[in-house]
């Protein structure tokens, strides 16, 4: 398998989640904890405040497996989560950051 094929396979097996949350010190722990306690690896995390700073947006790069729909429902149940949107793995938010993650 050549490198581009491998990358394609990885892309197929991943998803990007965009999550609107309340901005307070515990919110990352609530969101990431849902994944860690199910031994569900989170490959990438980005988070910054939005607008006046009362809200934040979290971007997660996660493996795409059969548990993902249930994970999204669990995220939507969290009190601090306003909305969850699912994107393909090629979403620009992580691909544009690749320059910062060269070995």
């Amino acid at each position, binding site marked *: 398998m050549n490198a581009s094929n491998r990358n394609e396979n990885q892309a197929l097996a991943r998803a990007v989640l965009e999550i609107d949350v309340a901005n307070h010190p*515990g919110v990352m*722990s609530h969101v990431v*904890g849902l994944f860690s306690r199910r031994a569900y690896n989170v490959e990438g995390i980005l988070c910054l405040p939005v607008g006046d700073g009362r809200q934040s947006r979290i971007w997660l790069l996660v493996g795409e497996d059969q548990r993902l*729909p*249930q994970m999204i*429902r*669990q995220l939507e*149940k969290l*009190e601090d989560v306003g909305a969850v949107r699912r994107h393909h793995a090629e979403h620009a938010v992580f691909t544009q950051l690749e320059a910062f993650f060269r070995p």
Partner: protein
Amino acid sequence: MSETPNETLTGAQITVRLLERQGVRLVTGYPGGAILPIYDALGQSTAIRHVLARHEQGAGFIAQGMARVSGEVAVCMASSGPGATNLLTAIADAKLDSIPLVAITGQVPKAMIGTDAFQEVDTYGLSIPITKHNFLVSSTEELLEVIPRAFAIAASGRPGPVLIDIPKDVQSRAIEVAAWPEPGHRSAPAAADGMALAEAAGLIAAAKKPLLYLGGGVIHAGAADLAVKLAEKANLPTVMTLMALGAMPVDHPLSLGMLGMHGAPYTNLALDECDLLIAVGARFDDRATGKVAAFCPQARIIHIDIDAAELDKIKTAHVGIVADVGEALTRLLPLVPENPRKSWVDRVDALKTAHPQPLPGLDDPRSHFGLIRAVAACLDDDAIVATDVGQHQMWAAQAYPLRRPRQWLTSGGLGTMGFGVPAAIGAALAAPERTVVCFTGDGSILMNIQELVTAAEQGANVKIVLMNNAVLGLVHQQQTLFYGQRLFASEFQAMPDFVTTARALGIAAVDLDQAANPCAALADAFARPGPCLIHAGIDAEQKVYPMVPPGAANRDMIGAQA
């Protein structure tokens, strides 16, 4: 916000005032350094009575007993560090059984958080996975928003526990309060999808062999009457989870009792044949379904639940409806045609006759089933039945004639030994006009036996029926059946004298083993008000049958023959 003249109050006084405004009249807890400002303010309240437990876990389960009986949010309190960690088991138990609680914990002052201060523990972090939501309050002003919100979250949607961690300086600091927030209440969920309800009604009308499967959500929603009406109108034989027992009276002609690992043989066999399963407020727990692929293998599934994440979690529903089950059933009822469904009802009755629940010794009060029935004979349907966790719990689930929602208090999801005694005390405090009976075992009672002192102090009307077989019954049973009879760590080598122990802790006690007439001794014990321990030795070789081995299909039951 309601306008009042400005008052200068500490965070502790604000907390107590907000609890009063919430309508809270009874709280339970255990004080300690980091929550002393709140206890000081609580002591000045004339509206709220505080019941002192003898262990924070006891306080958590007393609050659970109150919430399970009343359906209202109950409040428990503890200090920081070990106080908070001791509460955690009761909070996790409330999460798994969807019980509305507000737990308030003291925390070290904000400036000391993260310094490994005395009695500091990360209560916020520890409680994230076992609460519906939690708060670490960072300012006195925030209390005005957080406390009403905590009550609203605990009571709304699928109920659950909410923890509020309040640093000591937040409790002590005084601020001016210009206006009070509205108390937090249950918010109305979105209405059920009408198209899905019509589709569900169509499936019910067309089904030849439908079964109604009721879970704890039916109790929480106050929808037991509606569920029974639906069953009667469409002639739906009805199974209940452990959490739903009492939703339909067990002697109702359509009742098939409890399903699953220790369900009656006819119940699991009927599920195996059904062509439509109507799950209402149930979550397809593994103890109910057994091997999921073999659960109702021929059935289409209608799933009604207030928690969207429960739909398609274990079994994919053909019709999934996210709604308050009371609202959904109210609207489903007129859509479902009356149907005598004679051949299916006859088939289920034939299964009942051919494959009954084995209930050996029912007339012998010195046997496990006979004792449970003798206790029931002393009580009417107003009584509340709490249990601990183990063989006694399953025998009570199989043999006690439960006929009323909120009659049955048991730790279903977490299966917490030690639940029974404090939950029964909480039930007696919330419903002082009722008799509360608690079935427990010699293993379980020792896990919270200190709460007998609380029962004595409160004069709680709890009758604790201790079924003593000197072993950890369910462990003993599994080791016997599945681990080559290698009994290890399941037989107690030393055993307290429970009758003397109960008396030493301040409550009356009677030993049925010494009674010439055990039924008369039971009747005597139930006739006296106040707490009483009723000790009864039972045979350690008795098993909970039938039993579906863990991981097996529900049709493959051990000990199903009467």
